[in-house]
Every structure is written in structure tokens, then in C-alpha cells.
């Protein structure tokens, strides 16, 4: 089932994407953010909260003057490590308790700081490698069912209720569990601490919550004899920190989009670009598959019109991810089944778009999102639309399949809704498992022409963005009809230019280890 599309056009799209991302990468290389620096502290082992529940990483980074932070937090923190002889966790607590200030150690030479940091940097990276190895070995011992991997969300607000729901969903056939975050979290400039039992529209992403869910899924994985993956959301103001926590707690996937926060959460674009880069370097190192958020273009605007923008965003996300050292096998590019069900031949267009993405990104674990925009209180019709979505997914070989819920428009899923949804997907994907291998598209037919049109539209859009520059293009509302200015939006005050003496001990180590063993620990057995 192969579409005839213009290979040269695909190559030109990739060239445009490279031209779009290259100048942004220059900007990224010259800047850091408060969240990157807080991630450095978290990687070193700083955790916990100080007075007024302020997380210690925030407290420490905020204690450095705007001038001094241009060197990064690692050097002043390393100096304090060298002078106090404490380990990073204990030093963090001591600073939180007001026993020390980083400024007290400014006279200590940089070399002493770097020396004091080194064993902790190595230990952190060894820990992350260990968790990655653990995943690889579990996947070998507890192989997953073949893709599309059935992915469901839990979102009660209470991590312990989520745990019950996640285990039940796994037993019903779910292969990936996502804990949806509380709606406000993407705009918090800190990561909440400890297990949480209250949230709205979801459950806070905290390291303790990650650990609770990981333990529950490991247990059910052993019981079922197949590994159940865990995912959460990095996009927002704390991408690098959430990537850190995910690496430490062995999450398997993370939502991580290079532009989602800018367009859909009004987070400053410079902040997002810098943050996504460091977080993706960490994701690459920890073997975490990123999921990008192209589905959002379709929920806010017409899915037929936006198809070229979705593809353009996929090319840009791919380029950003490659530049952060991610191999294709870890780049879960997003798309969604959002065409209006009343449109004649809408199913054909969905098929065209899904197959086009599959052919353009053959090694990427594509993430396919279910219908949401046109779901209503008519759960019976919703279940049918989900069935066609499931058919499209299995026909076109999508990898990560977000199960659509018949109650999508009504509430966060009930336990029973999730099971009905998984049963729907299992039925369709089993009964039509090899359908895609058995049919061919009519050359020059509706499906093929649609795919060609989408690709052509994408090429034009990418050329325009390349000629304008990405930041200007976003400012001119070329993506999702949303206009964002380079210095507007949330979190801009947390972006700063790196001084000549900027030091981030993890960055160099991560950069030198890219695209290593990803092919060894492919997700699917």
C-alpha cells in the first residue's frame, strides 16, 4: 500500500526544515534558561522543597544574580560542593535551610568546582544509563504486543486512583499509560513536589508520582508478561526538568514538542526553543521516545486545511530532534484523526495523510491521536468514529496509538470507557491486521492526489517559513493562525545569554553520546 509521491519534494522539505532550524540552533547555543539550570541541579541530585514549598532547584537558581547566572548554576554550586564537602542533595537542603549561600564561595577557583562536580555528573549519567539498560532488558524479557501500541490516559487528579485505573487498563490491553497533567501545570515555572491527590483535568507531574506509577506498571508488566510503558508531558515551562525526572524514573515516552508551548500555551518562543533542546538531549540519552503535538493544529482549526501545516511541523520537529541527537527511532511525530465526519470521503483524506506521514518518516514511531473535536455526547456515533480511526491506524502502520474514548466530549474516561475503547481497537486491529499489505491505492485516485496536495502545500509553507525565519513566521501567525512575538509570552524573563565562562557539565557529556544505541533497544520486539 504505497502512495506515489514526489521524493524530490520530500528532500526539499527536509532542506527547508534544516534552513529553518539552523539559525534557531545558533540562538539556542548562545543561551540558557532557568529551567535548564534547575535541571542541572536536579541531575546532580538536588530535590525537595524549602520554605513556602519552593522547590530547592528554584530557590538555588533564583538566589544567583542575573549577572552571575550567565555562567550557569553548575560553577557556583560546584564551588560550594568543593568547600563544604557535602553531597549535592545535602548541600541543596543546607542552602534551603539558609545555612549557606552560593555567593559565600565565589572566591573558590573554577577548577575546584569542576573537580567537585565530576563524580556527581558521572554518577547521574551512569544512573540514567542504568535505567535505560533496565528498560532494554525488560523489553527483551517482557516483549510488547505488536504496534500500534495502544495508549490510554489516566487523569483522575489523584495518583493513587490513577494507579488503579492504569493497572486495570493494562490488563485490558493497554501498552502505554499516560498520566495527563493538571491543566495549569504547563504554565507553572516550577515542578511540584511529592505525591499528589488533587488536580484539575489531570494529575500533577511530580517525581514521586512518576515513581508510584512506574512501580505499579512494573508490577503489572511482570504479571502480564509484557512491558507496559509510562509516559508524561514535558511541554511547558519546565521541559528540561521533567525530562530529568523522566530519565531518573524510567519513563518510556514524553510529550515534547518544539513549538506547542509557544503556539498553544503562549510560552515565550526563545524559552521554548532553548528548553526543548536540552530536554531532548536528555530524552535522547535516556532512550525516551518523544511525542510531538501536531494534533493541536487540528483541534483548533480545520483538519483538511491544516494538513500541510501538520506535515510542516513534523519536518521541523524532526530537524530539531535530530539536532538534539535523537535518532529517528525516538521521534514520535504526531498526527490526528480530526476531519469532520460529515465530509464526504473524509476517511480517504485521513488515510492519505496517515500513509503520507508513514512513508516520509519510515523509522519514526508515529503517534496517532484520536478524534476529539467532532466527538459529541452521542457516544454511539463516537464509538463508530473511533473504529474508523483504529482502522486507519492499523492500515497505515502507525506506532503509538492513542485510543479514542467514546466519552471524549463528556468526561475524563471512566474505567469502563477505557476498556470499551481498548476492546474496540483490539477488535479492529486484529480483524484487519494485514489489510494494508493486501491493497494498493489507485494511481492518481482521490487518496493519492490528496497526499500529493498535502505534500505540495507543506513544501510551499516550509519555503515561506525558511525565507522569513522561524521566529518571524510565528510572529506572522503562519502556524495555527496564532501570532506570538519573539519577546512576548510567559517565561521570557527566565531566558539569558550565556557568558563566556558558561559551564554545563551535562551538556558536553550528552552531546558526545548521541545516536548511540537507539537501534539496539527499539521499542517493539
Amino acid at each position, binding site marked *: 500500500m504505497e502512495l506515489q509521491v514526489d521524493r524530490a519534494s520530500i528532500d526539499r522539505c527536509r532542506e527547508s526544515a534544516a534552513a529553518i532550524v539552523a539559525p534557531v540552533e545558533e540562538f539556542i547555543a548562545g543561551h540558557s534558561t532557568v529551567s535548564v539550570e534547575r535541571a542541572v541541579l536536579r541531575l546532580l541530585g538536588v530535590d525537595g522543597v524549602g520554605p513556602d514549598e519552593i522547590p530547592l532547584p528554584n530557590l538555588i537558581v533564583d538566589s544567583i544574580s542575573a549577572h552571575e547566572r550567565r555562567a550557569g548554576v553548575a560553577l557556583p554550586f560546584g564551588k560550594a560542593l568543593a568547600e563544604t564537602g557535602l553531597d549535592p542533595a545535602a548541600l541543596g537542603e543546607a542552602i534551603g535551610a539558609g545555612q549557606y549561600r552560593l555567593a559565600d564561595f565565589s572566591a573558590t577557583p573554577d577548577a575546584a568546582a569542576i573537580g567537585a562536580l565530576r563524580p556527581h555528573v558521572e554518577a547521574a549519567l551512569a544512573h540514567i544509563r542504568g535505567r535505560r539498560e533496565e528498560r532494554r532488558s525488560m523489553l527483551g524479557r517482557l516483549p510488547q504486543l505488536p504496534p500500534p501500541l495502544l495508549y490510554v490516559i489516566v487523569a483522575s487528579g489523584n495518583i493513587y486512583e490513577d494507579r488503579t485505573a492504569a493497572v486495570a487498563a493494562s490488563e485490558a490491553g493497554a501498552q502505554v499509560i499516560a498520566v495527563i497533567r493538571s491543566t*495549569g501545570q504547563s504554565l507553572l515555572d516550577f515542578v511540584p513536589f511529592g505525591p499528589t491527590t488533587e488536580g*484539575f483535568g489531570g494529575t500533577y507531574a511530580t517525581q514521586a508520582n512518576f515513581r508510584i506509577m512506574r512501580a505499579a506498571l512494573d508490577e503489572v508488566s511482570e504479571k502480564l508478561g509484557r512491558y507496559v510503558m509510562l509516559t508524561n508531558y514535558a511541554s511547558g515551562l519546565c521541559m528540561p526538568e521533567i525530562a530529568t525526572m523522566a530519565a531518573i524514573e524510567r519513563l518510556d515516552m514524553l510529550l515534547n514538542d518544539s513549538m506547542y508551548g509557544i503556539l498553544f500555551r503562549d510560552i515565550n518562543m526563545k524559552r521554548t526553543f532553548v528548553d526543548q533542546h536540552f530536554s531532548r538531549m536528555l530524552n535522547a540519552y535516556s532512550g525516551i521516545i518523544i511525542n510531538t503535538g501536531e494534533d493541536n493544529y487540528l483541534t483548533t482549526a480545520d483538519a483538511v486545511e491544516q494538513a500541510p501545516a501538520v506535515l510542516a511541523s513534523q519536518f521541523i520537529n524532526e530537524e530539531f530532534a535530530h539536532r538534539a541527537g535523537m535518532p529517528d527511532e525516538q521521534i514520535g511525530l504526531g498526527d490526528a484523526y480530526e476531519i469532520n465526519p460529515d465530509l464526504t470521503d473524509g476517511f480517504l483524506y485521513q488515510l492519505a495523510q496517515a500513509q503520507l506521514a508513514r512513508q516520509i518518516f519510515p523509522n519514526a514511531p508515529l503517534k496517532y491521536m484520536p478524534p476529539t473535536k467532532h466527538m459529541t455526547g452521542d457516544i454511539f456515533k463516537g464509538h463508530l468514529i473511533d473504529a474508523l480511526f483504529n482502522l486507519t491506524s492499523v492500515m497505515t502502520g502507525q506506532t503509538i496509538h492513542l485510543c479514542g474514548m467514546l466519552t471524549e466530549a463528556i468526561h475524563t474516561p*471512566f474505567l469502563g470507557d477505557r476498556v470499551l475503547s481498548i476492546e474496540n481497537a483490539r477488535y479492529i486491529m486484529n480483524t484487519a491486521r494485514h489489510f494494508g499489505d493486501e491493497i494498493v491505492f489507485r494511481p492518481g485516485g482521490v487518496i493519492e492526489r490528496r497526499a500529493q496536495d498535502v505534500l505540495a502545500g507543506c513544501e510551499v509553507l516550509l519555503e515561506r517559513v525558511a525565507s522569513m525565519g522561524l521566529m518571524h513566521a510565528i510572529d506572522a501567525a503562519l502556524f495555527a493562525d496564532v501570532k506570538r512575538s519573539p519577546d512576548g509570552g510567559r517565561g521570557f524573563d527566565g531566558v539569558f545569554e550565556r557568558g563566556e565562562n558558561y559551564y554545563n557539565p551535562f551538556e558536553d557529556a550528552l552531546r558526545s553520546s548521541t545516536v548511540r544505541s537507539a537501534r539496539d533497544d527499539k521499542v517493539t520486539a
Partner: protein
Amino acid sequence: MSTLVKPYGDTMNDGKVQLSFTLPVEWSEAADEAARQLVAKMGFGDVQVVEGRRIADGFSFFVVYAATPQSIDVESIKAPSARSHAMSMEEVDSFVSERIGRKIRIAGACIGTDAHTVGIDAILNMKGYKGDYGLERYHMFETHNLGSQIAVEDLVRFAKDRGIDALLASQVVTQKGSDIKNFTELAELLEAEGLRDRVVLICGGPRVTNLMASELGYDAGFGRGTLPSEVAAFVAVTLADRAKAQTREKVTGRPGV
């Protein structure tokens, strides 16, 4: 005259309903019977558990058909609609220029922590919804879409500073009653600031009904499927009616409204 009705299965007044639910018990024949008795305790008769099965460790799912002995007098039910002023965009624009004589200043936001702007965007964004243009496209509306996660304090301050005529508050997330809480806070704050009578206050969202809106002290509530022109017409007609009433009462001191 009362018209009592019952659910219709295939015969008038058979009262047939379908239910489905999950019980937190391992499936067994006793679980099926428990489901049947539970539905009987709800007051239903002729209860048939047509499907009962294990869906996870310690959870079972049931599909049940039953007959209700209850009936309802539809004629006695009141649920006034706010969607009754049918006008096109052009008609609204000319209505506003004739009857109000200036642009209507309208602001909308997803309030509280809700980040789902799909509803408010459908009403306000130029593009609109289902081919019905959004309020940004209307000549006689000055439209401010404040976006997502707007604190009610900020929305009220904005309304005050900009002399807003109509406020649209949207809530998609309804978990644990967060929508009701936020809507209530907004209405109360407007009241406390002495602005309530100056604005047309509207709430919207997939679970909003006009009845619920009036219980919360709103002028109107718009639920799923609402078109931008329906909201525009309601705002225009309401403001024009208020202006007329005030002229009649010779109320002065509030130019323009």
C-alpha cells in the same frame, strides 16, 4: 393539559431504558445478579442484564435493559433558550449600528486553570465554527480574546479598564465542579466590583446549559453546538433591550449603555 410521557422502546409507554456501568467486583454469576438487583433498587422493573463480564482484576462491566415506572409531564418543563434570536452576521451588524450606534466591546476567556480554548475560539476567532464567522469578523464588535488560564480577577480588571459590554467565560474542564466554582467566582467578583449590571455576562462550554447559567446569575449560557452568530445576536438584543429600558426610566449617567 398534562402530557405524561415515558421512554419509548418499541411500544408506547413501555418505559425501556438502557444502562451500562462498572462494578468494582470480580465477575461471577453472583455479580450479574448483583447488577440486576442494583438496577431493581433504582426503581426499574423488568431488569435484564444482557451483558456482564470481567474487564480487569476486581472490575466487571454490565449492560442492562430495564423499564421505568416513572413518567414526566413535558409541558410543565421550562428551559428557556438563549439561542432564539436568529440573525446573520450582517443582520447583527446592522442591528447594532441602528439600535446601539457604536461598537459593542466584548471580551472572552477560558477562566481559572482551564487551558482548552476550543470553545471560546470557535465563538470569537475570525474563522468561527461550522461556517458561521466568529465575532472578530463582525464590524460592530470590538472583540478581545484573552485566551486560556485567565484568572477571574484579571478578566474583571480587564472588563473594568476597557469598559467591556459583554463578557464570555468558557469552561471545558468540569472535573470536580471546577467549572461551577470558576463561573461562580466570576459572577461574585463582578457583583462585588459593582460591574454586574453593566455587562452582559455569558458562560459557555460543552456542559453548560442556559438553565444552569441563570441559576449561577448569568444572563445566558451556551452549550455544545452554539454558533457565533447566536451569541452575537443574544448580546446585541440584550444590550439594545437594556438601553431601551434605561431610556424609558430616564436613567442617566451611563452614556452609551
